């Protein structure tokens, strides 16, 4: 991935490197207060629409590379939505997006009453505020609500990152907390998918590096296992996985706005396809030690197994991409895959609001 903010990546990486990570399996990853404070002090937790997509992607990649159990990416996504919908979020607040499926809202006097369930909300239990999509009179609008007081069922993903379910039981929201305009739910889901893919890429780069290091250090039959051709081929397939996902993320981040969703769909599919190959082979190269709780490989592979499903599974996005590109007026498969193409203009292959 080259079209992203390398400087920003280096700065935030320095913060993560200082943080001496305790690599252990936890039922729930503990919240590293110190790192969050540093991110907040440097302003990384307050960026939204003011930062470019390249910046958000750089932070996402750094989070993935260092397996940092903090909602930096999700807060960036939620702030971007809030900014576009004209909603105020205090600079210090932890805010996340609660779901990409609209809740029900009905207007009562000058308030909106919200009901429904937002499932698998990233870091829900740590959030001060939630940005939620609410269907009001046939229109989806974004509202900002306090998390405290909501019914919350805790759960996690494979990497023990919080993914909680929140129930809205006729929650009363003042009109001032309901935005106008903003991104479509589809836009948000796609943007979330792209940022997860960027994080996944960071994790994959780490996995490649640690696999190469291990293969060169581990001696069996009197020589480093990197000398065995079979192991070399595993390492090559791991590198190919990284290179192809990097290319797909790069294409999506730098895509013209009118092709954004098409390239994001392709990137998320590539993550699912290639992370599956990479994780299997990286564990194979590492042997038993890679499956040990204290090994730095597993926080990355466990994240990859979850991230490939979040904000739409590989299959969801494959179907979405087919729906974008297969249609009766299409001049053919190849022209559809290689836009610009006039016939694609009505196919929802681009972003609705500026990313």
């Amino acid at each position, binding site marked *: *991935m*080259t*079209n992203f903010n390398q400087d920003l990546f280096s700065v935030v990486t320095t913060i993560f490197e200082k943080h001496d990570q305790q690599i252990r399996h936890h039922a729930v990853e503990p919240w590293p207060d110190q790192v969050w404070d540093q991110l907040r002090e440097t302003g990384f937790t307050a960026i939204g629409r003011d930062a470019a997509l390249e910046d958000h992607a750089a932070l996402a990649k750094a989070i993935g590379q260092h397996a940092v159990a903090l909602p930096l990416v999700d807060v960036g996504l939620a702030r971007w939505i809030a900014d576009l919908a004209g909603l105020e979020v205090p600079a210090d607040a932890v805010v996340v997006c609660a779901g990409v499926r609209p809740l029900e809202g009905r207007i009562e006097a000058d308030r909106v009453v919200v009901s429904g369930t937002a499932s698998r909300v990233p870091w829900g239990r740590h959030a001060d505020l939630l940005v939620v999509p609410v269907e009001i009179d046939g229109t989806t609008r974004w509202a900002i609500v306090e998390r405290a007081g909501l019914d919350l069922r805790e759960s996690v993903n494979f990497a023990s990152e919080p993914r909680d379910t929140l129930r809205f039981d006729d929650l009363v929201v003042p009109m001032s907390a309901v935005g106008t305009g903003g991104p479509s739910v589809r836009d948000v889901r796609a943007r979330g998918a792209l940022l997860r893919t960027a994080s996944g890429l960071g994790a994959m*780069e780490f996995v*490649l*590096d640690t*696999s*190469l290091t291990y293969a*060169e250090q581990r001696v069996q039959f009197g020589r480093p296992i*990197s000398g065995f*051709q079979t192991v*070399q*081929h595993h*390492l*090559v397939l791991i*590198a*190919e996985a*990284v*290179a*192809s996902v*990097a*290319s*797909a993320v*790069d*294409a999506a981040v*730098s895509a*013209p706005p009118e092709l954004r969703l*098409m*390239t994001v*769909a*392709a*990137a998320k*599919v*590539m993550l699912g*396809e290639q992370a599956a190959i990479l994780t299997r082979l990286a564990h194979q190269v590492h042997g038993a030690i890679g499956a040990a709780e204290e090994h730095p490989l597993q926080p990355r592979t466990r994240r990859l197994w979850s991230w490939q499903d979040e904000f739409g599974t*590989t*299959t969801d*996005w*494959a*179907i*979405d*991409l*087919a*729906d974008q*590109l*297969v*249609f*009766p007026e*299409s001049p*053919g*498969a*190849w*022209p*559809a*895959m*290689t836009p*610009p193409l006039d016939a694609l203009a009505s196919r929802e292959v681009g972003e609705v609001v500026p990313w």
Partner: protein
Amino acid sequence: MITFPSSQLTSAELALRDEVRAFMAEYLARGHRRQLGINAEPSIEFSREIARRGWIGMSVPVEYGGHGRTAVDRFVVVEEMLAVGAPISAHWVGDRQTAQMLLRFGTEEQKHAFLPRIVASDVFFCLGMSEPGSGSDLASVRTRATRTEGGWILNGQKVWTSGAQYADYVVTLCRTEPLGERKHVGLSQLMVDLKAEGVTVAPIRLLNGAHHFNEVFFDNVFVPDEMLLGRPGDGWHQVTSELAHERSGPDRFLSVMPIVQVLYDEYKTRDLDPGTRNQLGRLFAMYMTFRSMSLSIARRLDAGELPAVEAALVKDMGTQFENRAVQVIRSLLNREIDPAAGELDELLADAIITAPTFTLRGGTNEVLRTVIAKDLMRTRGNVA
């Protein structure tokens, strides 16, 4: 550092694309059948026709009769042609490799003598690389040329030489110095007239019955001095430095695109079930990604780089993917394929039967992976 920066086609490149796309639509409308990539039967008429349109030797400078365009322009032309199954075989080697090789290593006389004729599809080349005892271990070739008055005497045998039955010259990798301690030293490339005395061409039919490949025998063939490419002893360097051109092209992932297009045309008016859309979407994502990677290599060639490792990577991934695409199409059709039952089945049958060669031709994937692995160890896995 292994990297594939993505880019969009410029408006000039898009204009070229539209021109080629329109021409190919018209060409197919004339009743020509679609074929699979470099499996295609050679058509000298087609090669001449597109030469007249300026689509061969595009990056050859104007002073050598070329069009002074870019590697990306060539990429655009080639991908459009492969996507619809154009018969590109006849000019393929000359356009992709020999012209580049002559530009980089040829003498002024050689450039002036051959480049304008390649550009015009007036002369066709083939590659004399493999031998019965030398496949992946190419530097072990035993075909040898010995010095004589005004030239060389060539003896030996080449195998898997595609197009030797109609090409004019075979670019022959041979030993011009006795084998010393290092086998990569003392090799040269001779451009051998296939009609010269002592040259015999014998066909090798492929498992689908097609005749692309040949054995070429050299029995005391006289090759004049001016037909030695560049400098004597430079052969290995010449062969390996063109790999970025040879390995990265759209031919490495688009072989079965004509089948996808035929199937797509059937599907596009139907309601497709989620399983089918899932399979199609995955194919699309991979086509888009490999195309982006391949294009990025063409851009880097234009910037004067020779990204050979990236090219090997694209070829390894692209040719594996072509095999997967064949499997996906078979599972979508879910029936016996009848090679005599129309375009889709005919093309698919050809793809199924020849798919094993996708990961062999132009360097086996195993050799490619060894190349990539060496680079990974050297650069400590710098992939971005």
